[in-house]
């Protein structure tokens, strides 16, 4: 019986730092981002935006959070704030394929098709698998009148997406 306080102290000493770690673990931030993405998936853009802004407020250094923010803003049609979000994501992680794809979408939207093509190709080099990047490149080539390239990228996107869905 006299040992019980000692055991309790030992447990606190062993688990205490663990609790502290858990509260600031990367898992928590990923969960926050996941929640924001889930809300967007359910069509609740405003709520998703509020959640991702809070994620960024809590941990401003995660590139992925800024990427998610960028895509939400893009869906809301807020082009300039979306561009800022993707730029911030690229500052934090210059080799983010998703951020480059987002930036490419914005450049294309602003009429800079060549700039968009270049950054999207960069994104593909970093990650040859994102179907979305192929989709955006397809749109650009379609706009540029290069049907052959557009067709290639749309087909490639379908192939990749089908493989990942399997």
């Amino acid at each position, binding site marked *: 019986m006299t040992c019980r306080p000692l055991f309790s102290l030992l447990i606190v000493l062993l688990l205490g730092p663990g609790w502290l770690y858990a509260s600031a673990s990367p898992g928590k931030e990923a969960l926050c981002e996941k929640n924001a993405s889930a809300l967007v998936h359910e*069509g609740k853009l405003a709520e998703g935006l509020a959640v991702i802004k809070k994620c960024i407020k809590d941990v401003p250094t995660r590139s992925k959070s800024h990427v998610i923010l960028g895509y939400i803003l893009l869906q809301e049609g807020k082009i300039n704030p979306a561009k800022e979000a993707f730029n911030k994501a690229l500052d934090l992680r210059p080799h983010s394929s998703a951020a480059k794809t987002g930036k490419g979408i914005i450049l294309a939207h602003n009429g800079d098709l060549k700039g968009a093509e270049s950054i999207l190709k960069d994104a593909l080099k970093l990650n040859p698998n994102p*179907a979305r990047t192929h989709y955006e490149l397809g749109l650009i080539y379609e706009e540029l009148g290069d049907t052959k390239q557009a*067709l290639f990228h*749309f087909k490639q996107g379908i192939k990749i997406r089908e493989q990942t869905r399997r």
Partner: protein
Amino acid sequence: MIIKKYLPPRHKPVLVIFVAVIVLLQSSICTAALRTLGVGTDGPKFSLQEIKGDKQNFSSLKGDKLTILLFWASWSRQSEKALKQMEKLYVKYKDQGLSVIGINVERQTMDDKVLADIKGAIERLKVSFPILIDHGLIAFHDYGVIAVPTTVILDKYRKIVFVMSGFPLVGTRDMIHFVTAVIEGKKIQAEVAQRTGYHPDKRAVRYWNMGIKALKSKRSFNSSEKLFKKAIAADPNWVFPYLSLGRFYEKQNDFKQAGEQFQKALTRDPSNVKALSSMGLVLMKEGGSLAEAKRLLEKAININESYTPSYYYLGYLLGKEGDTKKAAELFAGAEKINPMDYHINMYRGMMYEEQNNMEQATRSYKKALKQLLNL
């Protein structure tokens, strides 16, 4: 009617026989209502939100005896009829072990306007059973829904006991009889029991389920072949493992072996729409007889008007033969049944690409990819 438009003039005199055959064979709808699953297999788990936002799953909503899942959308006229029928069954049997769950598959992505439309439809039709929203069409794809509406009835262990695509007259009558008999503890009429589909051996189902799981994984993909063969050994009369094994070979571009498996399925069930369609496609892909492929695909459409793959495979075939007008009608027909199936645009794209119409091909592939990306 798509069939009427599609039939060549020389076939029109047999239209009456055609219609009679369709009506008689509506029963087969039960065997090809879902892309992969069917009677005897387990229904996938799901966790979906109600309109209010609360998450629900099978366990929280299941009935003690039966659970009806109705995949529906407000844009589908047949869905309205199905919702009304399910409401009647629900009101009658909700206290006797029947649960009805409406799974809305309105669109790939939802927004406030779409949700308001769904809410409006539920209120207008006075639906009192739970309605869940399939955001991103996850349950829709997990169940392999081909047409909207689709009815899947599960027992309390989540095993599929009845499936029906569309809302056909005979199928609906069978469904009502089936539900009534199970809930009231009466005997199911022999012909209805036969039409609800073959009830496979449990061991075969277990191996088949493992095979399907393996087929979806990159790491264990190859082991699915062995598992499907084990399922066949356990129950050689059950056609599902032949179809799945055929699909396995097809994915590896081994059309000869794929064709052999589809043929084995057809030997056991000559009216199996999935086998007929898959065999038709394989014949096209391996450079076999286009006339035979066409015959099989036409037969599949005649048996089940709701099975969309037969439409786009036949559309693709007709495109190969240069009949783009009829092909376009078939693609449009498939879109009416299931506008969310990206395969329709993919096969349309393939047809245009082979015809060297690159602009239309690009447009079709673009639409297919957009659908796949949920954009």
